[in-house]
Structure formats: structure tokens, C-alpha cells
């Protein structure tokens, strides 16, 4: 018999059940979706930046994330070998800056030896997309060479901030709630990073010149903005964001190179939903996609049993889509946006 700490004199039986429902929702929908949304937001921000400056959908972004994560994991192992740690935080946080630097170098090298040629040729966007497919293969091979194709877990340190049992004991509720370090970390890092990126774009000279270049390339050239510098900064931002997003995703779930290709679809969807080329839209899009995905693939029956009278509780799982179809959700939202408002929620470029 659990102790009812929140017992209220009137209608004693219903209130905790209502609380149980909220806890259930928080545990299975809100918390996971927020963390996932933050990861998608960071990924989509990188895609959208590349899009707005270099004007193409970068198919290699997923594999850039995978590479950045792989590089970070190697450094984590190195640190672990040396006994260096950041406990209770995961060692990955310590390794992340180094992983970002390595990934930046890779992205800059790619630009120098691959993309720059087409930029100077002023090739059409679709050629860039094709080239990014080639780059995707190379990144994929590099990642596999670095770390193989297996599943890797690299979360160390204190794994939970709130455990299910701890929560039950503390609150006396039937439903438990788990809050993982990686989830809280994901959200904190995402808030810090996006704030920094927005500040950079809005307030620094370089950031403004990036936006100017994205707005009107010819006029930017006439204003003396150096395109090579803009592109360099863009790749550094994209690579850093890709690494951060990839590492946070890997900490939260696990690292497998192939899943990083699959996550490309929700990331593209987030960028388009937000209005491609719009940094703020990309972040909003990330959360829209994540919440829709989790909410549509969640079995709502448990939640309903807490809030409905017993005779109204449905027999089925009340799950709109099974979890295997989670990528369908991104696609559905993408299709709806393309049909209804191709510019995205914040007007992006369509042509």
C-alpha cells in the first residue's frame, strides 16, 4: 500500500491517479521526446545552415554525425584508458570538443577538395546533392574503418538523476519516472548551443555576413564579404553541431553507424517543417517531429486507464502507429508540410 503524500481531503482516489497519468506521460512521452527533439534540432540546425549558405540538402550530414560520434568515442576510450573522467558526468562531454575539432577538420578538408570546385563552377544544387552522396559513402567508410559497424554504448558516469524506484519511493505514486543524465545533459547542451548559434548569427559581424551571403550572394560579394570565409565558418558550425547532435544521440540511445543514416530523414523533415534555411525554424521543427513521432507511436492505453472511468477504458493499445513506423511520422509531417505550406512554418526558400 503506497503512502499517499499528495492526498487531498476531497476526492482522494482521483487526484493521485491523475498524477499517475501525468507521470506516465512525462516518463514515456515528454522526457524522451524532449531529449530526442533536442538531438533532432541540433542536427537540423546544421543541415539548415549548410542549406542557407551553400544552398543544397546535404545527404552526408547523417554520416558526418556518425563520424563525429565515432571520433568522440575513440577519445572517450583513450581518456578512460588514462583514467581521466568527468564523473558523475559522462566522459564524452570531456571528449566532445576534441571530437568537434576532428570533425571540423574533416568537413573543411572535404570542402577544400570536393565542394569548392563545384562552388566555383556555380553548379546547380542537384549536383551538390549528388556530390554529397559521394561524400556520404566516404564518411561512411571512414566511420566504419574507425570503429566498425557494431553497436557501441559509451555512456559512463552517473546514469540516472532520478530512477524509477527512487521516484516511486519519494512520491508514493504507482507510476515511476526515470530521468537519465544523458537526457538532461542533452537538453542543457542544446539550449546552450542553439542560444550561442543564434547569438552568433544575430550579433557578430561574421554571423551577419553569413546571413547576408545566404540572402544575396552577389550583393554580399559586392559588399566585400569573403565567400570562402563564410563557407569555412558554415562548415565549422555544421560539423560542430553534427558532432554534438551525434554524441548526444549516441549517449541517449547507442551508437550504430547505420542509425545515423536513418536519422537523416527526421532531420531533413525538421529542417523543411521549420522552413529550410531558417535556424529558428529548424529547432522548432526538431521538436515538432520528435513529439509527433513519440506521441503517435506511444500506446496510450496505460495513460487512459488512469484518467477514464473503468468501463470506458479501451481494449486495444490505442497506439496509432507501431514503433517500427516511427520514420513514417517524419515522412507524413513532411508530406503535409509540402502539400499545405511548402515554405515551412517560418518562410524558408522553396525555389
Amino acid at each position: 500500500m503506497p503512502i499517499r503524500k499528495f492526498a487531498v481531503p476531497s476526492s482522494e482516489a482521483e487526484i493521485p491517479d491523475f498524477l499517475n497519468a501525468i507521470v506516465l506521460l512525462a516518463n514515456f512521452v515528454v522526457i524522451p521526446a524532449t531529449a530526442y527533439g533536442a538531438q533532432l534540432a541540433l542536427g537540423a540546425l546544421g543541415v539548415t545552415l549548410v542549406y542557407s549558405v551553400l544552398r543544397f540538402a546535404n545527404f552526408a550530414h547523417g554520416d558526418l554525425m556518425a563520424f563525429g560520434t565515432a571520433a568522440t568515442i575513440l577519445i572517450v576510450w583513450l581518456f578512460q584508458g588514462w583514467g581521466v573522467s568527468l564523473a558523475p558526468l559522462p566522459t564524452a562531454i570531456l571528449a566532445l570538443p576534441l571530437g568537434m575539432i576532428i570533425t571540423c577538420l574533416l568537413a573543411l578538408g572535404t570542402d577544400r577538395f570536393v565542394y569548392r570546385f563545384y562552388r566555383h563552377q556555380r553548379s546547380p544544387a542537384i549536383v551538390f546533392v549528388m556530390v554529397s552522396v559521394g561524400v556520404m559513402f566516404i564518411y561512411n567508410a571512414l566511420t566504419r574503418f574507425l570503429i566498425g559497424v557494431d553497436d557501441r554504448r559509451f555512456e559512463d558516469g552517473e546514469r540516472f538523476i532520478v530512477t524509477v524506484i527512487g521516484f516511486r519511493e519519494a512520491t508514493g505514486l504507482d507510476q515511476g519516472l526515470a530521468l537519465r543524465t544523458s537526457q538532461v545533459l542533452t537538453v542543457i547542451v542544446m539550449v546552450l548551443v542553439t542560444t550561442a548559434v543564434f547569438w552568433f548569427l544575430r550579433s557578430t559581424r561574421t554571423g551577419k555576413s553569413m546571413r547576408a551571403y545566404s540572402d544575396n550572394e552577389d550583393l554580399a560579394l559586392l559588399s566585400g564579404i569573403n565567400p570562402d570565409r563564410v563557407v569555412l565558418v558554415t562548415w565549422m558550425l555544421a560539423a560542430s553541431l553534427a558532432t554534438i547532435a551525434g554524441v548526444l544521440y549516441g549517449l541517449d540511445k547507442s551508437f550504430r553507424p547505420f542509425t545515423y543514416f536513418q536519422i537523416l530523414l527526421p532531420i531533413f523533415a525538421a529542417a523543411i517543417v521549420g522552413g529550410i534555411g531558417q535556424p529558428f525554424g529548424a529547432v522548432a521543427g526538431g521538436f515538432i517531429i520528435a513529439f509527433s513521432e513519440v506521441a503517435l507511436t506511444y500506446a496510450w492505453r496505460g495513460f487512459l486507464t488512469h484518467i477514464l472511468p473503468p468501463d470506458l477504458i479501451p481494449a486495444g493499445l490505442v497506439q496509432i502507429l507501431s514503433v517500427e513506423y516511427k520514420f513514417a511520422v517524419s515522412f507524413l509531417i513532411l508530406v503535409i508540410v509540402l502539400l499545405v505550406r511548402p515554405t515551412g512554418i517560418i518562410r524558408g526558400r522553396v525555389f
Partner: protein
Amino acid sequence: MSRIARPLALYAVMASLIVAVGFIQSWTVALSITNLALISAIMTLGVNIQWGYGGLFNAGIVGFAALGGVAAVLVAMPPVTDSWIAGGTNLGLAGLAILGTIGAAVFVRGRTHGRRRTWATLFTILAGYIVMRIFLDPASDAIEAINPSIQGYLGGLGLPVLVAWPVGGLFAAGAAYLVGKVALGLRADYLAIATLGIAEIILAILKNENWLTRGVKNVTGIPRPIPSERTFQTIGWVSELGHSFGLSPAMTAAIANRLGYALLFLLVLGTILWLAERALNSPWGRMMRAIRDNQDAAEAMGKDVTRRHLQVFVLGSAVVGIAGAMLVTLDGQFTPTAYTPLRYTFVIWVMVILGGSGNNWGAVLGGFVVWYTWVMAEPIGNHLAAALADLLPAGWLRSHILDSAPHLRPFLMGMILLLCLRFAPRGLIPERRAPSTRKPEVN
């Protein structure tokens, strides 16, 4: 002159490379490579129709190939009567629900306007979906319970497997029509992203709707259009013919079986190639290329570019679907997990770009060259890794290098694609351009 000599020479080189495998390794291997190369060539033709004729980037080839593949199951496998009895009624009702939803959506759209129309449509579809699930879920459970270890699905129509090939094309064309309706007419890369998405969804459905495809349990034993090796062994004159070449009966049968497929595939490839060439050189083909080369001008001349693009997109996907059905026919089994984007989407792209976008003969050659490279990358990768490892002392690095041999494949594919785009963007056999369709050089 060199317009003929160059392709001829390249084809001759390719043929001798395959023959070399026959002499060095074995004829069955050479024929197996040929068969898959033929199928790849057909897929490449399909993608070339989209990219070469229309400039459309399809990032979901794997999905269309898989849709073609499922046609082989649905057409050729014998029906499972018990499953139909168990789930047929509910399944029929679910089907009616889908039709009803479509009808209701059309009705609702006719009665509403603007923003409200969008929401009303979405709501109708959602409601229809829920109704459909109410019937589909029990049907699916009932069907999957029927003899799950070997059946647990509806089976097919029990028709000859060759019927599945055009049906596969139709399936793919249908899916392409829907995606094209949504994504064409917007930015070129939106089509790429939308096709990437539809492919993921097609694959998810094929892996998870067990009542339809048995999902990851695979469908095996799909009827074959060519007598099996065992049957060939019993045919006297075949064995004798093999014997006169000094081949064992088993080897003869293996070769005869593969040769049968090769001829069949060659027939399909030849037909599609002939049609594709005719289309390319017809007024329609010239118009398509004119649109591709200068979309703005074509639009200004009153051409409905989006409609034309939808045409090539559907046509190209249909060809990919046919090839997908052929692939499953060759394997004799349907394995949803085998469809990876790397292998079936992006490698096909390498084939198109290397072969010569816009040139059908180039596309076919690209299919052969890249498939050959793909197959050979494994032994070569192993050799390279072994040679490299020999130079190293035993230890971590050495075993790492040995383990890394398979990763040579994506690396090679990426390299071919990038080098080709950079240094030979028109491919091995460049497109023949009529002077009138050449884009004016700007700057």
C-alpha cells in the same frame, strides 16, 4: 566514328573482364555476376530515365525495387486459403474503409475551403485510418496465427512468376505517382528527400506487415521461371552437351540454369533499352531534354514542366520496379532486410553517373562496371588488407586492418562517384547532344 567505336570498345573490355572471371574463377560465378549486372543495368536504365531525361534525383530507388520485389510474392506464391478464411472478411472491410476514407476525403475537400479544408481532410483521413485499423488489426492477428512457421500470411495469387514483372512495375509506378504529385514542382532536392522518406516507409511496411509479406521471416520458395539445376541434370541432351565441353553434369546444370536467366533478363533489358532509346529520340524525348537543359525557357514556352517530370518519374520508377521483381525471381526468395539504401539506392546512382547520365547505353555499361567492381571489391579488399597486415607486427592495428577489409566497398563507391562527377561528369559514354538542345554557355 568514335561515337560507335568508344562504346563498342568499352563493352568489349567489360565482356572480357567477365569472361576472365569465367576462366580464372568459374563460369557459374561469371554468369551470376552477369545476371545481377543485367538486373542492375535495368535499374540503372530506370534511374537514367529520371535523371538523364528529366534531371530528377530519386533517393528512394531501394523502395521502388522492394515494391517490385513484393510483387513476385503477391503474384507467384500460392494463396493460403486458411488465411483468407481467417482474415479475409476483416481485411475486405479494412479495404472498404480505405476506399471509404478516400471517398470521404474527396467529398470533404469539395465542401470546404482554405485552411479549414486542410484540417478537415486531415481529420477525415485520421478517422478513416482508425476505422481501417479496427478491421485490419484482428485480420492481421488471425492471418499471422495460421501456420506461422511456414505461412502466417495471405500468400499470393499463384500466377506464373513472369506476370509479377510488369505487376512490380505497376506497383512502383503507383507509389512514384503519389510521391511525384507531392514533391515535384518544388525545389529539386525536395524530391530527393521525399523519395528517401517513401523508401523508408515502404521498407518498414514490408518488414512489419507480416500478414502481407511475412516480414523479416522472409518468403522462400518463390516459383522459378527457369528449370532448377536439379531438373536440368535430368535433361539428357543438356548433360551430353556439357559433357562434350568436358563439364560435369552438376556444373552443366548450374550453367544452364544461370544461362536461362541471363537470356530472359537480356530479353527484358533489350526491350526496355529499345523502348528507352526510341522514347529518347522521339519528339517527347527531345522536349524532355530541352526542359532539363533550360527549365525556365521551357516554362516560358508554356510547357507544363511538372507534368512532364511526373511522367518521367513514374516511368523510371516502373522500370526500377520491374528490375526489383526480377531480382526476387532470380533469388527465389523475398528478404526485406536485404534492401539497404546503400546497396540499392546509392550504388545505382554510382552506376548512372559513371555510365553517362542521359545515355542509355552508358547506363547499361555503368550497371555492369559498378556491379563488377562491387563484387570484386570484397576479394580485392581482403587481399589488400592481408598484404598490408603482413607488413605489420601482430597486434591491435593488424587485426583492425584485417577487420576493415569490407569497408573498402563504400569507399570505392564514393571515390568512383566523386572522381566521376569531378573529372568525367558526362560519364564513360557521354550523352549525344543534338546541337539544338545544347544549353547556351553562360559566362
